[in-house]
């Protein structure tokens, strides 16, 4: 096998597992990741000097987290792990990165994108005030910094993270004011059989609910968020119950989210194909049964492609690594690396999780109606401070057919997050104004740099070169 430059972007479960498989086959993959340590978000490690153990940090997932961390650490030397590295552009077979703040260019032959996900949100009045965070953000504050986002926290939304993070907060000694699920009780009950027969995952959810109940923390279904109370920061949360009655809860922090959305900006820049996933009500990057994207030499794994959680991400990481090995052996026939059977095994394991994935999607459905009903005076795009009313007016006046045109007319999605945060809600609003399905509203195209890059880094590099 000739020396191939295999680069993995992302050191979460998908990227770590892929790197281990490739290292096991004698390749020395380069693993690029923004964080200072491997683990991704789900298995994120706490900074040096912190003393909490794996059980405290990862709960039920402690065993898996420890196994992956230990294996990855033991492979040091066989994996070229480069933490502190932001990949901000892809031009053909070249990655443009900032490594510890300095610009570099990296060529690759095979690229695995394992870029993970972030919380999917829907704006609601007051959501930009200090004290409102995503569910994932609230979890990171606790896991990575041993902090709660406030003294008394309301959790709401529709996400597997909802009972989990609330239970983690309660266990860590934070006061949980309430857990409010936008999913109606009947929908949750309908999804329950699929959740509970789909393996351990559903039962973990039951345990979190039991733990919340044991602490007498209210858990409500079928709620609708109304607004944050407070002028300069969170002082309370108002919601409507399933019968439409308004309730107010005093709190100084709110964590919310509606499942996860893929960080697919790099896949977009690489030219990968996308498809709308009706089950999850969002776009995903297209991959074949082995994790190959539509672009030759570019592979995909984990939540960055399609939301499925850490266990699926790890299997998908292995699968993509084996696909890379199989494709390399095609280059050099005669050295069949025996990947066929292993690939098939990965595919079977992933297929075995399909039922659970669907059950989770049903148990925590994306409440698109909330996005369509965002009040006109509510900020939609928090980067550019554009309200939903301004966005609707721009659509009505200028008649854009997709979100990219709407962005040009309204600045929604034009700010520094490139629409990561407001994109899903903006597409829902555009779709309802135009009277079409949300997939017809399209998705915001990614532009380099995928995250803001400081000019100073390039100025210094140019000086060094001169």
């Amino acid at each position, binding site marked *: 096998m000739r020396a191939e430059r295999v680069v993995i972007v992302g050191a979460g479960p998908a990227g770590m597992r892929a790197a281990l498989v490739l290292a096991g086959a004698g390749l020395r993959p380069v693993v690029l990741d923004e964080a200072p340590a491997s683990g991704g978000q789900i298995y994120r490690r706490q900074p040096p000097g912190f003393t909490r153990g794996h059980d405290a940090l990862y709960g039920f997932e402690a065993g898996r987290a420890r196994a992956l961390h230990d294996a990855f650490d033991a492979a040091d030397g066989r994996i070229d792990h480069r933490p502190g590295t932001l990949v901000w552009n892809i031009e053909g077979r070249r990655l443009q990165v900032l490594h510890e703040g300095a610009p570099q260019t990296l060529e690759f032959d095979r690229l695995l994108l394992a870029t993970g996900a972030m919380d999917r949100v829907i704006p609601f009045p007051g959501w930009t005030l200090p004290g409102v965070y995503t569910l994932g953000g609230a979890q990171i504050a606790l896991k990575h910094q041993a902090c709660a986002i406030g003294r008394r926290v309301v959790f709401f939304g529709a996400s597997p993270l909802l009972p989990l993070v609330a239970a983690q907060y309660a266990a860590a000694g934070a006061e949980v004011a309430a857990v409010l699920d936008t999913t109606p009780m009947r929908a949750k009950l309908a999804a329950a059989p699929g959740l509970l027969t789909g393996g351990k995952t559903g039962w973990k959810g039951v345990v979190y609910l039991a733990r919340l109940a044991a602490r007498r923390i209210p858990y409500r279904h079928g709620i609708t968020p109304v607004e944050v109370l407070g002028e300069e920061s969170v002082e309370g949360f108002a919601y409507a119950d399933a019968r439409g009655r308004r309730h107010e809860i005093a709190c100084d922090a709110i964590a919310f989210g509606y499942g996860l959305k893929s960080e697919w900006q790099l896949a977009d820049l690489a030219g990968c194909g996308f498809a709308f996933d009706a089950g999850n009500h969002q776009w995903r990057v297209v991959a074949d049964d082995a994790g190959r994207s539509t672009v030759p030499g570019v592979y995909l794994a984990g939540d960055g492609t399609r939301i499925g959680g850490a266990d699926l991400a790890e299997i998908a990481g292995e699968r993509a690594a084996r696909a890379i090995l199989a494709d390399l052996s095609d280059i050099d026939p005669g050295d069949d690396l025996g990947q066929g059977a292993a690939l098939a095994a990965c595919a079977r394991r992933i297929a075995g999780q399909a039922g659970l994935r669907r059950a989770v999607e049903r148990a925590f459905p994306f409440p698109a109606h909330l996005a369509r009903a965002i009040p006109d005076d509510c900020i939609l795009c928090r980067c550019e401070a554009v309200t939903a009313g301004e966005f609707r007016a721009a659509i009505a006046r200028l008649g854009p057919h997709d979100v990219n045109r709407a962005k040009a007319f309204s600045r929604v999605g034009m700010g520094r997050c490139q629409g990561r945060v407001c994109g899903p809600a903006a597409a829902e609003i555009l779709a309802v104004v135009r009277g079409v399905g949300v997939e017809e509203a399209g998705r915001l195209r990614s532009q380099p740099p995928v995250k803001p890059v*400081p*000019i100073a880094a390039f100025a210094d590099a140019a000086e060094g070169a001169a």
Partner: protein
Amino acid sequence: MRSADVIVIGGGIHGCSTALHCRLRGLSVIVVEKDHVARHASGVNAGGVRRLNRHPAEIPLAMASAALWQRIGDLVHDDCGYRQTGQIRVAEGAPGLAAIAERRRLMEGLGYTHERWIEPDELFALVPAIARHCLGALYIADDGYADPTRTTRAFARRAAALGAEFLAPCRAGPPRRAGSVWQVPTDRGTLSGAHVVNCAGAWGGAIAAALGEPVPIEPIAPMMLVTARMAPFVGPVVGSFDRMISFKQAPNGTVVIGGGWRGRAEPDTNRAHVEFGELHRLIHTTVGLFPVMRGARITRAWAGIEGAMPDAIPVIGPSTTAPGVIHAFGFSAHGFQLGPIGGAIVADLVESGATALPIAPFAIARFAGQAWREAS
């Protein structure tokens, strides 16, 4: 078959301006645009409304266009985001100073007085944030910039309000002679008209070639960077005689940086790619000229497809092979300011076959046969 007095191919600023001026004179117009109005160069350029440092042949047109910019709100019923902040082009070293001296001699010889030399003291007073190595500048106080997408759309909207018809997205094929009129095949059927106007930008060369008058047009993809918001620190648009840069801060605080750095144009796929290797040098220049930019963050970059001619001035005027066809393309990355007058010139040519403005230097005949290659 649908017909109009004038069939315009291309919905950029020149196509939209042509539609408006034709309607103002009572001519019926259909504009055919393969994507949407302002999709390429007209929508993604830096928006410079600049007479400063124009090619001498373009100066009379730029002057006439500046008069229309002065009353742009009356013309298109939208202020187009037009701001007369001034445009400045600095000298940073001896070559820049020499270029300014040469430029001043040229302007004096031609009798132009609109570009003013300013000493370093005045430059630093006008642009306090600029680096102190600058040695002086040429300046036009009432040049400025506008919002390119908004402007182009405003021309389209006003033309449509006056009865121009826009077909977009709709591809047009090369015009064919059919007796006394021209026929233009499109996705939505064939159009016919006495006049066809080629405002197809980077794609204008293909139309000219189909009419038997090929031109050496090059599709280019000028790149732009935009930063996160910063406290206001510069009013005028700033360029340099020594380095490739164009620099301006928008009213919302974002800084837009360009200056002719090129990405990769793919006119066949409609895509333009940013190439960051080149942009390192632009960033170096930026920080050199404005030290405050060290603290800036790039949030977006883009490129748009534009047609560049080898002599960097456009093709404007009647076809030499196809009577009734008028060309206005190849503006070589500085056609935005000329937009308002460009449409008026074409309307003149449609109406009377002539215009009062001196357009001889832009004749397509300059590229005929071997003449161009021998001259260059």
